[in-house]
């Protein structure tokens, strides 16, 4: 995935002002090849431009980020999605990640962190905002009934530790220092958790997410 030229990025968000801001923040490091405001427009421009990374808003006026990912799924494109949203509803976040996004960050993210997050998902890493880490811990908590497939439905102790530190606001580098492991190992744990989040068959995940919305 690593290329010498600049990463090509598409912005999908229904707020024009927000796209403008992100374009300004990312434009110096990456090529913003297109913008889109709704689901159909997004599917078209992404298929047209075939970017490396799509910054995808969870909520669009005509649908959700998940719709965009699913509509592009059968086109066999090598595109990485990073979900970006103001939504803190677990349902939306879990949905878009399970549909295939490599990570989720909130819109309150700082400029340099967003630049970094785009680079990392392009390199194949998983990006967890503290909130997503919290959702994962909640969804995989022991309070949820016995899993069908322990390989996919449970987090290892190490993975839990990594998620806890992410939720506490630690960066991967800081987590490595804290747990005395390499940054690469932290990445490996995070990617493993993302995989479990996407592939876990536990139906509790969605019902948990729906329940949480009511809290």
């Amino acid at each position, binding site marked *: 995935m690593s290329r010498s030229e600049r990463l090509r990025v598409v912005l999908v968000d229904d707020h024009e002002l927000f796209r403008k801001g992100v374009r300004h923040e990312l434009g110096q490091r990456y090529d913003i090849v297109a913008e889109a405001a709704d689901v159909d427009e997004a599917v078209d421009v992404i298929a047209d431009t075939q970017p490396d990374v799509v910054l995808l808003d969870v909520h669009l006026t005509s649908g959700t980020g998940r719709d965009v990912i699913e509509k592009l799924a059968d086109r066999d494109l090598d595109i990485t999605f990073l979900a970006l949203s*103001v939504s803190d509803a677990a349902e939306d976040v879990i949905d878009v990640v399970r549909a295939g996004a490599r990570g989720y960050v909130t819109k309150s993210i700082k400029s340099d962190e967003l630049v970094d997050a785009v680079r990392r998902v392009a390199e194949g890493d998983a990006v967890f905002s503290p909130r997503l880490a919290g959702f994962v811990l909640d969804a995989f908590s022991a309070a949820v009934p016995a899993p069908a497939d322990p390989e996919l439905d449970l987090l290892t102790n190490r993975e839990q530790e990594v998620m806890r530190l992410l*939720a*506490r606001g630690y960066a991967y580098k800081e987590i490595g220092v804290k747990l005395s492991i390499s940054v690469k190992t932290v990445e490996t744990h995070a990617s493993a958790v993302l995989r479990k989040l996407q592939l876990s068959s536990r139906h509790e995940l969605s019902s948990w997410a729906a329940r949480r919305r009511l809290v």
Partner: protein
Amino acid sequence: MTTGNPIERLRRELPNGLSNDRRSLGIILIAIGGLVLARRGAAELLPASILWPLLIVLVGFGAVVWQVSKSTEAGMRGALRDQRVAVARIALGCAVALLGLLAFLAANVSLAVLLTGLVAALLVSVGLGLVFGPWLWLVLRDLRDEQRLRLWADERAEVAAHLHDSVLQTLSLIQRTDDAREASQLARRQERELRSWLYGRERTVEGDIESAIEATAAQVEDRFGVAVEVVVVGSGPLDEPTSALVAAVGEALTNAAKFAGVDRVSVYAEITPTSVEAFVRDTGDGFDPTEVADDRKGIAESIRGRMQRAGGEADITTGLGEGTEVHLRIQRESQREMQREQRGDPRGDTA
């Protein structure tokens, strides 16, 4: 509320007080009664033994009447505020009148004189009763209505002032923000605030832990203009120990907002069935724990002290340039009860 100002509507529907002419008629009647007595007294050379007691009676009635009219004319508020004084005055007036009657009876043995006097006095009393009885009753009712109205108006003014300071301000803020999260945060905080205002005092041991932490974080965001990222895992109702933890989270956040020199602070809380843990972390200046300024130490102690008093713990990890993390832990009330039961100590110390 339907159309129109409800206070105005009620005011229109209320019965009017007695008109001024009826009141003056009463006063004229009294004056005539007094004149007749004086003339008769003078003409038949009746001794002061009749005149003076009657005058005393009149003074008594006068005191009562004066008090009542003062209540209506000089403003309800004053009269209502010194309702006891008013009652005392009226009672005193009645006592004086009674005293006059007794003096009258005692001083006059002559039956004829007594009868004449009694008839005159009776006439005056009946006149007074006829005129002032219903009037007094109406005045009292008027007073009650006015009092109720005033209370209502005060209450309404207070509600209006409160809504203006809180809800209306928040609504205008929400209209001006594009950030849905910020809007919902504002709305949530406003809802909580309004609820506690509507339904009595601030509810310290109700609600759930997550919203309490979010409300605390929102307060700090507002006060210090820092962003507080809140992540809560698990859920549960607030109880006394966790309320203390939430308060300590607030202290730690305030601390970070004031001293860390950063624009973002993280809160992570994990709620299990037995305990609650919270981390408040900033990546700011940090401080040397061995060389803390007095005020800084005070804040740290207020976090530690608060947690210890509630039966929990607090650890503060920091170093110059290393940021600060405050780690708070406390057992939930249900867990403590279970432990007490296991020890066979149903009503143990809660301190």
